[in-house]
């Protein structure tokens, strides 16, 4: 028994001296707490914002989308567009190097773009699945050591921004690696070099001495902490400097601590309730009703969006006046106010008076659970607001990934459905491309209004920014008056930030650590 006790005491002593249990990062290190790990470090296979945020510190892009939405030079310092609008030629800065020590030239850029569409590699991430089809990518070619040309099938007003989403990597290293090796060994030219990836735990980066992008911290660590309350605890203990996706119900706890605070920002994700306009629900009572634009407009007045934001999201929200983010939105349209009496009047006028039971018509609102901020309660609140104006609404909340996503993607959700769509700050057309054509994938409402869709012909056939902007505003007015969305809010994002550092959040869910500093 004595030997057992002695051994136990010795063991405990060793363990307690083995490590300080809660350790603030050193002054040269910035630690970010993430809710999920990345699935790989392949720059051509990015499919989540978290992965993109990590890789943007390892890789550079030709241009850089700033927080205010401007497109600033990054690896390239200038570009030109061919007369037919189909070729973008970028001139790289001189003296760029890859993390493997090789110079980064136009050949690496051309290799990057052509590699994305290599059928043997069969990438399905953001570049291959969205960017390249959007710009109708044909090929990339190196015209000289510093000049690279991206060739598209047709002119595209948002090509520069889309091209700026492609992470440039280094031909010499990537040609030698298999696809599996490339997913584990990223070699770029960004501010940070890859050090190691402890799967499920952390990704460690260190500052690259030869990078064209400056950064203040020597080391950057991305720690995977899936549970929100654990992330909060690590932040309050100052073991991490910043956490993404801070839970709204923990905002007060973080702010009450003396070691951290929450930085809230109105994001670019457009939250809306879609009105299905297709055949599928046209013969149902509610589906028939929302085919009328007067009914859709009435519903805009029936939901108190400000109250939803204040009480369920624990943050004031930026209201939506349309499909476009506020900095690029229509200059004069105002968000629909909460006026249930106006909603009731408009519904009466639209031919839907209350019956003896006080019901105008019945409808179902479908939603997925667990994807967006407090989504279940937001949807329940919307259902209640609709009930209050006589629209008897059945809330059908289902599992997000296994049930709701397939319904949405096959355009079967409805007659009303709750959804969010990511947006951007750099061009209104980027947000509007959700409804670029009637057949567009994200046109989940199957809206076909010709006043909207014919506007694209004007935009695509013009190079005059004034004409384009005028047409955008006209289309946004159509969307405001007759659109297929109940306009809600831009989802706020919550970042927990340690009092140890200064860090500036962005609206577009991108995370930049370059300019973070110690206080």
């Amino acid at each position, binding site marked *: *028994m004595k030997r057992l006790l002695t051994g136990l005491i010795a*063991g405990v002593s*060793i*363990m*307690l*001296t*083995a*490590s300080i*249990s*809660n350790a603030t990062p050193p002054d040269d290190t910035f630690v970010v707490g993430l809710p*999920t*790990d990345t*699935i*790989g470090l392949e720059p051509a*296979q990015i*499919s989540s914002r978290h992965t993109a945020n990590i890789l943007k510190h390892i890789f550079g892009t030709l241009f850089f989308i700033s927080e205010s939405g401007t497109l600033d030079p990054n690896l390239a310092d200038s570009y030109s567009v061919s007369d037919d609008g189909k070729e973008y030629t970028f001139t790289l800065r001189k003296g760029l190097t890859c993390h493997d020590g090789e110079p980064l030239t136009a050949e690496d850029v051309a290799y990057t773009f052509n590699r994305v569409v290599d059928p043997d590699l*069969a990438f*399905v*991430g*953001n570049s291959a*699945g*969205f960017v390249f*089809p*959007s710009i109708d990518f044909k090929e990339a070619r190196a015209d000289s050591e510093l000049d690279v040309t991206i060739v598209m099938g047709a002119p595209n007003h948002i090509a520069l921004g889309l091209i700026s989403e492609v992470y440039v990597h280094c031909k010499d290293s990537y040609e030698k690696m298999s696809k*599996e090796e490339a*997913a584990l060994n990223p070699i770029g030219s960004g501010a940070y070099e890859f050090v190691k990836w*402890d*799967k*499920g*735990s952390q990704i460690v980066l260190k500052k690259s001495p030869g990078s064209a992008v400056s950064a203040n911290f020597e080391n950057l660590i991305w*720690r*995977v*902490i*899936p*549970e929100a*309350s*654990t992330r909060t*605890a*690590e932040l*309050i*203990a100052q*073991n991490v400097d910043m956490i993404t996706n801070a839970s709204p119900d923990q905002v007060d706890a973080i702010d009450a601590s003396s070691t951290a605070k929450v930085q809230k920002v109105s994001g670019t994700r457009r939250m809306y309730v879609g009105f299905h306009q297709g055949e599928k629900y046209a013969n149902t009572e509610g589906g028939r009703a929302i085919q009328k634009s007067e009914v859709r407009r009435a519903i805009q007045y029936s939901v108190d969006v400000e109250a939803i934001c204040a009480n369920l999201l624990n943050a004031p929200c930026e209201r939506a006046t349309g499909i476009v983010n506020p900095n690029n939105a229509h200059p004069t349209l105002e968000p629909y106010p909460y006026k249930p009496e106006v909603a009731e009047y408009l519904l009466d006028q639209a031919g839907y008076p209350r019956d003896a039971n006080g019901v105008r018509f019945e409808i179902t609102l479908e939603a997925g659970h667990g994807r967006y901020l407090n989504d279940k309660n937001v949807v329940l609140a919307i259902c209640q607001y609709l009930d209050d104006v006589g629209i008897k609404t059945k809330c059908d909340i289902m*599992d997000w*990934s*296994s*049930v709701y*996503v*397939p319904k*949405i*993607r*096959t355009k079967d959700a409805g007659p009303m459905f709750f959804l969010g*769509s990511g947006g951007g700050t750099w061009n209104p057309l980027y947000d509007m491309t*959700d409804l670029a054509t009637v057949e*567009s*994938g*994200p046109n989940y409402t199957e809206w076909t209004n010709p006043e909207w869709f014919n506007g694209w012909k004007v935009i695509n056939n013009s190079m005059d920014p004034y004409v384009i902007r005028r047409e955008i505003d006209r289309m946004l007015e159509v969307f405001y008056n007759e659109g297929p969305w109940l306009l809600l809010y831009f989802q706020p994002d919550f970042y927990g930030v340690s009092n140890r550092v200064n860090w500036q959040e962005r609206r577009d869910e991108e995370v930049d650590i370059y300019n973070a500093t110690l206080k």
Partner: protein
Amino acid sequence: MLTYILRRLPQTILVIFGVTLITFIALQIGGDPTYLFVSERASPEEIIATRIKLGFDKPLHVQYLNYVLNLIKFDFGDSLYFRQSAMTVILEALPATIELTLFSMCIAVFGAIPFGIFAAINRGKWIDGTLMAIAMLGQSIPNFWLGIMSILYLSLNISWLPISGHVPFLMPILQGNLLEGIKNFPTTCLYLILPSFAVAFYSLSRNARLVRSSMLEVLSQDYVRTARAKGLSEYSVIMKHGMRNAWLPVVTIIGLEFGFMLSGVVVVEVIFAWPGLGRTVFNAIAHRDIPLVQASVVVISILVILINLITDLIYAKLDPRIRLS
């Protein structure tokens, strides 16, 4: 013994295939998972191409048959989410779960012994009442709540133990780096304390009650009275004569405990950011990563069956009256 093991083999194979069939059906209930593997702006043609590439265009019975035929060849398929071999993903996560489960098992088994013995030899006294009240509490408290509370009070408020994270011990050893594994061992143990306790507390409580009642029964036996009458010390009576028989029931349920703990570690691994197989399976289910879930289920089933087999063999060794038949 070898005959016994060989006789268990057919039922092991049956169990594994039964488990894969149930898992396959359960995962298919949610419908076509193709949409989770394409971007939201993918065209209909891309969706169709992805569905064909992932094999979801085939009839369900064909999909299952292909899976079984590959399983026979020890081909567990590729993870749809990680886009690499499912077995690679599992083998990367498994050592962390083994660390957590073994540490938890040690707490649950070896912690229960003194717990139960003290309660038994102080039967009716306040120590017994207190220990059994704690045991009842342990069987009532959910492990996720215990985990979060322990973080709040033991890590955040008084900074005794780390909040979350993992320092690998087994993985470096398996990769051939013995020195690094040994160097990491004390820190690994530090990080293991809270999550292991959260996993093990329920089992420890149950085992303690089992040891207590078993010990009470044993201590009332004639041979124990004889041992005392011979003048043996109380320590010898309890530890050498009583304990050997009292903890047979505990050994019996170790196999069941292991399976129970493997299910319990899922939530605890998420709370403590422990990069183990439980968390991997949890994410795989959420992402409808069917090959990874199925491969994980096979691996976990094999582990549970193996532990149960070892338990049976140990039991036979401990109790000569038991024959492996």
